[in-house]
């Protein structure tokens, strides 16, 4: 019986090529998107849960300055002294473990005299591998800890540096003046791990340097991450309270607070920026939900096509169904037959989608910057696939099968077809739903595109593609002992480097600053003073330390006053941004007023127009610009069309002045995109999804229009015989559909408005949601729908009436 079902199903699928292709395409595309989303969601939800007893491992993750919860500190040092805690709060079972990540500055590896900058190094203490799960490939952990100067590294790094993961074992890597031996090769960190450090070194190696030890063994260092493991029945609240007390007693000079939470929830806690220390990003629950919904919506609209077209097709199969019933097929048997057909079809769709997903996985990994795998040997993949199949069959198969099973064969003998009026209403509603979704997607894509464009135009406007930046390493500065922190000496030294680059005419301009103008993340509160400041008013002030030429390079616009002169005369003077003037409450005339920073006193010589110097998610805050401070980030403006030549020049300069570190640089447009990486990813995905949804909806409409045209062949024939024009008939046929699409658009408006508003609320600075966005989207949808329908209707209208009437 099943063989019979499958055989018939297969013949039907292959016979109706147009319908099959529409369905295959729509469902497969939607399913590929769905599989990716499922992978991502599954991965997010399982973060860090693979460690044994993960829920009992508590990272005291958040150390906040009480003054402002918006400015979390990087990491914490408190439980470095976790022994103190043990006595106060029982329940800490396996003690604690620490990691000292080195992501921020990067580590220079010397391998066979070749230099590599490695950003994923970390020092770990003796308990690390007990607490966290790692898969060991070669070597062993015991010998890793036996000698402090050991390294454990992941297989992909081993392959990168030594060509072969097995051969890397026992090799040597030089870091600074110490030589380390590779003692263990680990499997790569899973995509759902918060710890993405690839190179691990025993902490004892780091602390064997007395100055490191002295610097770190106190309460003022926040570079460590500490994790404690509690026994299952211990009360985390007690431990948190005890930890807070210890901290308060030992670090009396600060108002820092602390909280702890299970490791498994750490991933979604994006209040802290600890993540940047260990190479992973925190997850965002709301985007997780949004994308889950998007995935289901896509699958849903593709399924609507399938249901609509299958039900429409059953009309053509009235004869087959009628006969089957007459020759003895029962309701159940027919139901099963059509369900089997859906099952077969959905399995094909699933297989195609899986293959496409496998092929497209590298692209997806690239966009999400994760390392997902889609292997048939994975149980999770099978679970996801089977779950999807069941969902698909339920969505797609049940309704058509029910309609078919209930068909009374006498209707067939009397020349009536299966579909009755009530089915038409349902199918029309489904089309409306499809277009509601498509419309929402398109409004979404428009709003996101406009917002991104707004962002790109709201910083200072300069040609980011022609400016490259690199940082003079602090390690190298250290060698000169910071020139005894003499700003003038350092500045003179930097000037020498600047001039060295300027010798080549491919380099137009070189300026120094403390940070990129697009992302000034240096700030301080306290120490600032101006006329009229209340004693206890210590707002945060962003610091932008610049060269005099910076204004022209970044095209900074002044509102009033003047810029710094290119000599030493403005050494103690300041320029503020508009917000600073407002927040500080400085009264007119602003120019010439007293301004001071930690006793370095001068006057305000200018005020800039406000520009976004941080991500647009954040509000523009007060900023002070000045010149006389250490700055070590170079910005090089390259003459048009001379990028390769200029890069050669810059690198040569680098080698001359910084021989012991590899040259690393970034173009400003890349850095800028990096700042909005998540937004750009979202915008790309939504754009992609809206294209998919509109294509699927249009395909559905096409199929339905074809079906209606076929159903009304006789009517069209008669109308033509009685003199109706092609135009008249085209309009007649299109009218109904256009009505549906318009209904869909109208329903979509408030939904789209709500969703767009919700998303825009993530930004401190956003576009205004004007009516024309919705109008444009509506017209676009209508146009696409109309073109799709006309394709069918015109064909139907032009058909020869004699033919159609004869076949009736």
């Amino acid at each position, binding site marked *: *019986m099943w063989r*019979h079902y499958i*055989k*018939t199903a297969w*013949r*039907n699928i292959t*016979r109706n090529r147009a319908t099959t292709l529409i369905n295959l395409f729509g469902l497969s595309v939607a399913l590929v998107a769905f599989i990716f989303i499922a992978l991502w969601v599954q991965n997010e939800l399982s973060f860090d849960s693979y460690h044994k007893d993960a829920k009992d491992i508590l990272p005291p993750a958040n150390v906040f300055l009480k003054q402002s919860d918006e400015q979390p500190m990087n990491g914490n040092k408190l439980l470095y002294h976790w022994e103190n805690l043990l006595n106060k709060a029982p329940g800490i079972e396996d003690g604690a473990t620490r990691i000292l990540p080195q992501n921020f500055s990067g580590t220079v590896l010397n391998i066979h005299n070749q230099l590599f900058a490695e950003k994923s190094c970390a020092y770990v203490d003796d308990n690390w591998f007990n607490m966290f799960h790692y898969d060991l490939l070669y070597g062993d952990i015991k010998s890793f800890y036996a000698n402090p100067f050991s390294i454990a590294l992941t297989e992909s790094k081993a392959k990168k540096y030594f060509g072969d993961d097995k051969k890397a074992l026992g090799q040597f890597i030089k870091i600074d003046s110490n030589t380390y031996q590779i003692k263990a090769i680990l499997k790569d960190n899973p995509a759902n791990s918060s710890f993405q450090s690839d190179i691990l070194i025993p902490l004892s190696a780091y602390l064997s340097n007395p100055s490191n030890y002295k610097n770190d063994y106190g309460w003022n260092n926040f570079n460590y991450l500490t994790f404690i493991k509690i026994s299952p029945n211990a009360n985390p609240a007690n431990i948190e309270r005890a930890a807070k007390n210890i901290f308060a007693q030992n670090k009396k000079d600060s108002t820092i607070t602390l909280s702890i939470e299970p490791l498994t929830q750490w991933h979604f806690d994006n209040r802290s920026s600890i993540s940047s220390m260990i190479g992973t990003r925190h997850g965002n629950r709301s985007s997780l939900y949004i994308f889950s919904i998007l995935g289901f919506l896509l699958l849903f609209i593709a399924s609507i096509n399938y249901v609509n077209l299958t039900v429409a097709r059953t009309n053509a199969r009235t*004869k*087959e169904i*009628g*006969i*089957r019933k*007459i*020759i*003895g*097929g*029962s*309701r159940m*048997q027919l139901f099963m037959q059509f369900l089997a057909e859906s099952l077969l079809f959905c399995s094909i769709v699933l297989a195609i989608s899986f293959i496409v997903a496998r092929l497209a996985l590298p692209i997806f990994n690239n966009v999400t910057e994760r390392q997902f795998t889609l292997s048939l040997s994975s149980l999770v993949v099978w679970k996801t696939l089977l779950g999807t199949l069941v969902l698909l069959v339920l969505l797609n198969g049940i309704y058509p099968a029910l309609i078919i099973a209930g068909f009374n*064969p*006498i209707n067939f*003998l009397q020349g009536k077809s299966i579909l009755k009026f009530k089915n038409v209403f349902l199918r029309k509603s489904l089309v409306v739903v499809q277009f509601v979704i498509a419309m929402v997607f398109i409004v979404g894509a428009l709003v996101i595109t406009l917002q991104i464009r707004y962002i790109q135009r709201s910083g200072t406007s300069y040609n980011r593609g022609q400016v490259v930046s690199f940082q003079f390493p602090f390690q190298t500065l250290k060698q000169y002992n910071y020139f005894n922190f003499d700003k003038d000496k350092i500045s003179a030294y930097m000037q020498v480097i600047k001039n060295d680059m300027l010798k080549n005419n491919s380099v137009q301009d070189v300026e120094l600053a403390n940070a990129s103008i697009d992302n000034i993340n240096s700030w301080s509160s306290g120490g600032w003073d101006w006329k009229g400041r209340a004693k206890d008013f210590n707002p945060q002030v962003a610091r932008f330390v610049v060269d005099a030429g910076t204004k022209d390079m970044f095209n900074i616009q002044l509102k009033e006053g003047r810029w710094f002169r290119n000599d030493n005369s403005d050494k103690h003077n300041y320029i503020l941004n508009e917000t600073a003037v407002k927040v500080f409450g400085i009264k007119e005339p602003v120019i010439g007023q007293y301004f001071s920073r930690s006793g370095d006193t001068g006057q305000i010589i200018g005020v800039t127009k406000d520009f976004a110097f941080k991500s647009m998610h954040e509000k523009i805050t007060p900023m002070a610009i000045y010149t006389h401070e250490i700055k070590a980030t170079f910005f090089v403006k390259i003459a048009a069309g001379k990028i390769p030549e200029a890069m050669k020049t810059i690198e040569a300069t680098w080698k001359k002045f910084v021989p012991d570190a590899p040259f690393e640089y970034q173009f400003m447009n890349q850095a800028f995109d990096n700042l909005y990486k998540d937004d750009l990813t979202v915008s790309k995905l939504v754009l992609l999804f809206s294209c998919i949804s509109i294509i699927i909806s249009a395909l559905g409409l096409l199929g339905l229009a074809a079906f209606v045209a076929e159903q009304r062949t006789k009517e069209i024939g008669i109308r033509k015989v009685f003199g109706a024009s092609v135009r008249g008939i085209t309009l007649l046929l299109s009218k109904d559909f256009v009505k549906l699409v318009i209904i869909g658009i109208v329903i979509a408006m408030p939904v789209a408005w709500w969703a767009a508003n919700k998303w825009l609320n993530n930004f401190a600075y956003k576009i205004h949601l004007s009516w024309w966005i919705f109008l444009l989207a509506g017209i676009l949808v209508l146009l696409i729908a109309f073109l799709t329908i006309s394709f069918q209707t015109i064909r139907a209208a032009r058909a020869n009436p004699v033919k159609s009437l004869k076949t009736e």
Partner: protein
Amino acid sequence: MIQLQHVSKWVTTGNVRTFLLKDINLEIKQGEFVSIMGPSGSGKSTLLNVIGMLDDADEGVYTFMEDDVFKLKEKQRGELHKHHIGFVFQAYHLIDELTVYENIETPLLYQSIKTSERQAIVADIIDRFNIVGKKDLFPPQLSGGQQQLVGIARALVAKPKLILADEPTGNLNSKQGEEIMQLFKQLNEEEGVTIVQVTHSEKNAAYGTRIINLLDGRIV
């Protein structure tokens, strides 16, 4: 075998009741070969559909092999119909997506007959109807006469006691028609299959053992 008592069927348009069948009293015994005749719209096909349990009547009693058909549940009626009645149509009504072999096999599939037995039965009937060479073709590849042969083979494959044929030769030329009628006659005489056919043709009606004339839904 078949007993209809005061069977009527009608449609109501507005307040007007139009009778499709009016007060039909009819008995058909096992082994009969009955021809139903009458002009277009006289209710021949409706009567046949009622007998074949595809359609209901509004009034009267229908007894089929001691079962009161109108009182049966859909499922029971389905069982009766599936096991005892075979249909032959003017337009053949083969399933175009299935081969000759599969068309004939399908009724047996619906009766859940085991594969080996099923294959034997189908092979046997294909042999008997002399269509072995055509068994892997699809219906549109056959001539009308051949299609009707397949239609009859399909109606017979489940060994029904009753064959209902609605103008079985209506789409065939006279030679093909004659062959089909010969076949019916042979089935009736040699195997004792009860046959009820609807026909326009006096000649075809003459193959049967009895003729029932219908006019405006009544037997005359």
